[in-house]
């Protein structure tokens, strides 16, 4: 049974995963928290915590709130900064079989480029995933990923600064995610991952204040799965680069649905909180589906629901 998948076919060295199951950024730390718990080498790839140029302290508490079938979070990109990541984490990753993808986030286009340059030639880093759901601080605070032109400028700037395969993670908080996907593909993205969290809010009626310290948060979990699935279906029908599906995937059958919608790989996020073994259980679920349905190659399932 062949589960291997190439998610950067346009890139000179490519990014071949042994299977389509990746962890979603921000839900699996730096991967180093887990090796003693599970055999993470079995995963397709690990996407690490969103990384900025300087270390960031993140947002005030509360940062989390469970909602109906979902979670609102506003962590605020608390992270150790790219230099500490290169110094402390990458040497550990260099000894791993599983590829590690570094998720990067900036407040200016130049910051994205500078982070990418710091990651060039670093052993242990296999690709970059660009989080374009950050506020564009120098241009009024709207998210980079909302506007196709700005999203393309970030993508082009990172592409020009790195020799690594480049995945762009798309935000659903935009008018037309297909236009953004086409724009970043045109600007040099090797793959797109979607969706990031949906903006949301919760209010505590007792205190008459938003629950989340930063007022709003990003909604994830099963609540957003149908939205994510449709966006993956739409984007996969428009772009020629691989699509990585993400949003509320909790079991193997969810993953199979995203693959049938056109995703070449999937990311597991919120499900890992309730079940730290979720990425492994989901991989096993995909394998079982293939066994039960006589599918020998994952490629047969990619986009099977289209047409």
């Amino acid at each position: 049974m062949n589960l291997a998948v190439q998610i950067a076919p346009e890139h000179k060295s490519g990014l071949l995963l042994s299977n389509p199951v990746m962890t979603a950024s921000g839900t699996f730390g730096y991967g180093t928290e887990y090796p003693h718990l599970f055999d993470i080498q079995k995963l397709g790839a690990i996407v690490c915590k969103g990384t900025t140029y300087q270390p960031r302290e993140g947002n005030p508490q509360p940062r989390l709130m469970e909602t109906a079938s979902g979670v609102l979070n506003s962590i605020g990109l608390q992270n150790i900064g790219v230099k500490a990541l290169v110094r402390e984490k990458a040497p550990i990753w260099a000894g791993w079989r599983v590829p590690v993808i570094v998720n990067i986030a900036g407040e200016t286009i130049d910051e994205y480029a500078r982070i990418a340059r710091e990651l060039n030639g670093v052993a242990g880093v296999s690709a970059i995933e660009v989080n374009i759901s950050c506020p564009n601080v120098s241009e009024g605070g709207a998210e980079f990923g909302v506007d196709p032109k700005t999203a393309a400028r970030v993508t082009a700037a990172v592409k020009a600064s790195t020799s690594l395969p480049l995945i762009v993670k798309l935000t659903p908080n935009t008018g037309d995610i297909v236009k953004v996907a086409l724009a970043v593909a045109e600007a040099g993205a090797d793959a797109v991952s979607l969706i990031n969290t949906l903006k949301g809010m919760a209010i505590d009626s007792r205190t008459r204040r938003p629950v989340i310290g930063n007022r709003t948060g990003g909604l994830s979990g099963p609540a957003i799965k149908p939205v994510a699935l449709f966006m993956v279906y739409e984007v996969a029908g428009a772009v020629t680069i691989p699509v990585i599906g993400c949003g509320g995937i909790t079991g193997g059958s969810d993953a199979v649905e995203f693959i049938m919608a056109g995703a070449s790989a999937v990311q597991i996020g919120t499900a890992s909180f309730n079940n730290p073994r979720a990425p492994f259980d989901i991989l096993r679920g995909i394998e079982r589906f293939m066994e039960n349905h006589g599918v020998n190659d994952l490629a047969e399932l990619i986009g099977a629901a289209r047409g």
Partner: protein
Amino acid sequence: MKQLSARIISHQQVFAGLERPAARSTSGSWLMWLKCPGIAGEAVPGQFVMVRCGAESVLPRPFSLHRVNDNGDIALLYAVWEGGKGTGWLSRRQAGDKIELFGPLGNGFSVFPASRHLLLVAGGMGIAPLRFLADVAVRQKKAVTLLMGALSAGHLLPDASPPQELLTDGIPPFNLDIIKVTEDGSAGFKGLATDLIVNHIDRVDQVFACGPVGMYRTMAALSESFPKLKSAQVSLEMRMACGLGTCYGCTIKTKRGLAQVCRDGPVFDLQDVDWEALRPV
């Protein structure tokens, strides 16, 4: 850390609910014993477990270990939040049902070998992790003074005596002194557990506490006059998603920098936390 499914041995409500205009109310507190040798064998007092609370709950709920016995059983003592989806679901489980959990997690209390006498200060549900600490300390032949505070007599742990097995294995006499304190005076002293700290502080080697943030603020103020309190070890409650140090949902600011309550705590030194800046859960 183990991730496993455990059978409920017994489960009953032990405290009445709490109506609190200034904080979220609870509809009662429950004591659940689980057959769980995988976790019992590793756990130390102050550590916690993450419990999955049914299909409707996307996040597991963190509960400190209340007791652990030699038969591989663990006990959780937890409050059911008013309208709480996860704790409400958990409270409806019955003996014989299985629940899924993982742990033990976090860093527990650190009792120095040379310490002979410990002061434990419990505010309300704060008795949850301190009971396990008292059991272990008594077994190590340390003297324990437990200030057990609650709103009223109905919110005090009904049975705070040492574990049954200690009564038969020749270790006694125990030196466990339980002092009850209630805000309404319906049992023991009238007032707060923190009111009595000054009566005992000179005689003890270490102080451990668990309770609401307000209690820690009082202790921090007291520590100006009683420096021994500065190194009191206190357990924090915080909203969590992963429990493993990966999501950064439970980060707090400490005087030693940012800390994740799940991985770096939940036990912190009283003097390391900025209590005025910390928002109660």
